[in-house]
Each structure stands twice: as structure tokens, then as C-alpha cells.
């Protein structure tokens, strides 16, 4: 007897208080009533899924906390649609209106995990081909496919023909070659690479490194190995020489840029994500308990 009223809810809830809802969207209302039994469960489940993704993201950041040039990512969440159970402004009585209505939210979704391009710490390596960009720029790397990839990881070496290459063996663009006999390699803050040959005092210029900048670096596509590719969202690469006024940055020789992951911050995020997951799982349990009590009303 009691259960009938509970499930349909019509007999006491759409009476005098909500005439507008009954006439305008009677069918929709019925559908919502049916779904209502599982709304809390699905909201909590969406929260658990979102936190799971948050933890996946934190795990990747922590795994890369020692990766040179790695930029951390941060998950961003959004609330989902709202079901309007009572329309705001509907008639509450002969002369009163419902002021705000009743809206029930349906949970959360992960909107994006954006790349945080904050500068990482520098560590001194003493290797003359290690470089750090102090600013927003990216090194240009030519991939074997002919595409240009962009990277913040500035630990370079020489290959068998003397070209400056990254740890994957892909050449830095524009290509700069250093002869095998070169003694001291110097890279100026404006990217000019010079060297001296044995028995000579004057330095010779091998080339100038140019850097790329993007309108919206957060829109770049990560393809692994510290490489980024441009997308429609990031805009095309804007090429410039280091040290200019356009914010592209300057080059510092003999250092590498560490990952910008803050292990302490990530652990704090991990704790809060884990607790949020737990809280959502408690809601699942509570909803389950309550529905089980409803099922036990009739004997």
C-alpha cells in the first residue's frame, strides 16, 4: 500500500503545489519519477569515474617527476546536466510563485586535463649541449616522418655526422653541425652556437638555434617522448630567435629543465582524490541501503 504512493509520488506531490509541472510536462515528469530511483547511484558513480581518471593523471605526473622537460597535467571537472523537477516561476498557490524551483544535478564529467607549462627547475649538468629555455619557447625537432615536433627537453648530443640531435636521434631544426675536431662548444643566450678548433683562437659560428612559440600552448597534442605536435587549438608555430622581445625566451647552456611536477602537490592531490572517491563510494552504499529498506517495506 505504502509502496505504490512512494514510487508514483503523484498522490501527494503533484497536488496543489505543482499544477504547472503536471499540465506542461506530465509525460516527462513520469519518466523522471521512474529514473529517480537510480539518480543518486549514477551521480556517485560519475564521481567515482572522475576521481579514477584524476588518479590516473596524478600517477602519470608522478611517474614523470624525473623526466627532463616534462610538463604536468591537471584534470579539470565540470558538473553535468540538471534535471528540473519543479519549474521556477510555476504557480505555488493562488497568488504565490515557486521562487527557485527544484533542480537535481546528475553528477560530474572530466572536461580536460590541461598541460601546465610552468617553468621547471634547472639542474646543472656541465654537458655543453644541454640547454634550457628560459621562457615560453619550444625546441624544433625533425621527426623521421618529416614532421616537425616541438619539445622542451633540451638534452642534446652529437650524432656520427656531427649534427646536434636529441636523445631519440632526431635532429634539432635548423640543423647545426659541429666538426669532430671542435674543442669548446659555446651556445649564447640568443641561440648562436660557436666552437673553436685546435690551434685557433677565434671562435667559429656553426649556426643559430631558433625556437617556436604557440598562441595557446595548452592546446598542443602530446605524442610521448616529450614531443608535442601543433593542433588547430594551439595555432601554428610562431618561429623566432631566442632573446627577442616576443617572450620566446633565452637559452641557457649546461643546464637541463627538470620536470615541473611538484611531488608534494601531487601527493596532496592524490589524498584528496582518494578521499573524494571514498566519499562517492559511501553515497553508493547509502543509496543501496535506502533502496533496500524501500524494498523491505512490504512483507
Amino acid at each position, binding site marked *: 500500500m505504502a509502496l505504490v504512493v512512494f514510487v508514483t509520488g503523484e498522490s501527494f506531490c503533484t497536488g496543489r503545489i505543482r499544477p504547472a509541472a503536471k499540465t506542461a510536462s506530465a509525460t516527462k515528469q513520469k519518466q523522471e519519477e521512474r529514473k529517480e530511483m537510480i539518480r543518486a547511484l549514477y551521480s556517485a558513480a560519475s564521481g567515482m569515474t572522475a576521481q579514477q581518471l584524476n588518479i590516473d593523471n596524478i600517477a602519470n605526473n608522478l611517474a614523470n617527476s624525473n623526466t627532463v622537460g616534462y610538463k604536468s597535467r591537471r584534470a579539470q571537472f565540470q558538473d553535468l546536466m540538471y534535471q528540473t523537477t519543479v519549474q521556477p516561476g510555476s504557480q505555488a498557490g493562488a497568488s504565490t510563485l515557486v521562487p527557485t*524551483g527544484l533542480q537535481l544535478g546528475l553528477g560530474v564529467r572530466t572536461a580536460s586535463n590541461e598541460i601546465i607549462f610552468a617553468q621547471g627547475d634547472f639542474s646543472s649538468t656541465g654537458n655543453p649541449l644541454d640547454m634550457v629555455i628560459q621562457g615560453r619557447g619550444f625546441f624544433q625537432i625533425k621527426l623521421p616522418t618529416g614532421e616537425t615536433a616541438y619539445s622542451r627537453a633540451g638534452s642534446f648530443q652529437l650524432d656520427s655526422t656531427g649534427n646536434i640531435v636529441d636523445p631519440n636521434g632526431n635532429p634539432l631544426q635548423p640543423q647545426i653541425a659541429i666538426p669532430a675536431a671542435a674543442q669548446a662548444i659555446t651556445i649564447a643566450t640568443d641561440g648562436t652556437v660557436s666552437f673553436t678548433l685546435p690551434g685557433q683562437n677565434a671562435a667559429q659560428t656553426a649556426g643559430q638555434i631558433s625556437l617556436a612559440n604557440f598562441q595557446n600552448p595548452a592546446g598542443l597534442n602530446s605524442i610521448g617522448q616529450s614531443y608535442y605536435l601543433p593542433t588547430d587549438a594551439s595555432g601554428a608555430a610562431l618561429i623566432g630567435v631566442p632573446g627577442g622581445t616576443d617572450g620566446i625566451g633565452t637559452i641557457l647552456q649546461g643546464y637541463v629543465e627538470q620536470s615541473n611536477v611538484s611531488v608534494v602537490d601531487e601527493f596532496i592531490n592524490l589524498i584528496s582524490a582518494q578521499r573524494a572517491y571514498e566519499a562517492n563510494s559511501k553515497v553508493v552504499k547509502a543509496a543501496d541501503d535506502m533502496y533496500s529498506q524501500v524494498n523491505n*517495506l512490504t512483507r
Partner: protein
Amino acid sequence: MDAISTSAASGMRARMESLEMLANNLANVETGGFKADREFFSIYTGDDASADPQTGDIQTLPLVETHWTDLSQGNLINTANPLDFAIDGDGLFAIDTQGGVRYTRNGNFRIGPTGILTAADGSPVRALGGGPIQLQPGIAVEMLPDGTMQQSGQPVGQLELSAFDRGSMDKIGANYFVPLDGAKAKQATGVVQQGKLEQSNVGAAESSVRLVAIMRQFEMLQKAMNIGNELNRKAIEEVARVTT
């Protein structure tokens, strides 16, 4: 149906709606700029309440008739991202979405491919008086507390900050609020902070306490309903027993 069962059923239904609201709040405990929803209990008075004053037996039922959004300040976290903004105090950022102007507390902005400041979904952030904010590529952005953005010391635009009365906004998802018909935007008094994001204002500890309260109240109401059923059973089976 008797009065005990009806009241209890109404109470159970109201607690379930409370649970649904709480579930949504907890699901959004990490959503930047999210504002918690709270239920607003009211009492439904039966049609016969005024008709029969002598008995004093007025039938009233608890009901979640409306909700209110807790617009209190969430914690500000430091992100060091120059395009993250948080409002300290009242006010909302205005975003020109395809569906019209929407308002949000989530200041996780970025620069679009054409150089305009956009929200996370790519919709342009509205400048004071309308229109987008055009930025120069690669030049550091500085934000003054009143929402004026500067590049190389030159102002490039000012964010529109609007405040609304409590209860005059609806949530539409994706962290957006939309003002109800006739709601007027007021001058916001909050200040904009750069490199920070506002966290959700859902208190996890407080929500856990409310979760326990809702469950226990639900249990009590279920017991009350069983008592009502038991009384009915006795009335039917024992009071009206015809003894031979």
C-alpha cells in the same frame, strides 16, 4: 492510506531527493568553481486542513519543494598558471557561449587559436560591455584586482564581473549559471586573483555527516511506516474480529 504512512512516505521521498542532491555535491567535490546545492524543506498542507479546525488533526507532509545554491567562497588554490583566475568575494565571470551569456566561477581560461581569451570549452570570455578580449601572443598577461588585463604594461581589456541575488540563477551544467528571467546583474564587489583557481565549496566532512543523518532519518521513517502498517494490520485482523 493512514496519516502515519503518508507522512512517513513523504519524508522518505524527501530524504531520497536530499540524497540525490548530496550525491551530486560529492561527485563535484573536485570541480573547480562548483557551488553546492542544498535542499529546502517545506510543508505540504492537505486540502482539508483549513476545512476542519476543530479536530486539530491537520495533515502536513514534509516535501523538498525547492533548493538553494550555497554561493559561499570556495578555497583558492595556487596553480601558478597565469591564465587561471579566481574571484575572491562575490561575482561571476561572464562567458559568451553559443547559447547566450553564461556565468561561471571557474576561471580556468586559455588563449584561443586566434588570440582571444576563452573559457575551457572554447567560448570567448566577455569583456566589460561585451565583446572578446584580444591578447598578443607570447607576452605575459598581468591581471589587476578589478579584472583589467595588461600586457607589457598596456591594458588590453577588462573582464566583465557580474553578481546576482541568491536564488536568481539556475545551474545548467558545465560549471555555468544562467540568470532567471528578469534577474538583474549587479556590480560585483569581488576581486580577481591571478594564478589561482577556486575549488568546489562542497565540504567533504560536512557532507559525510549529512549522509549519515539522511540515512538514519530514512531508517526512522521506514520504522514509522512499519508501525503504521502494523496498526493497520491489527485494525483489520484483530479489532474487527467477529467472535463466535
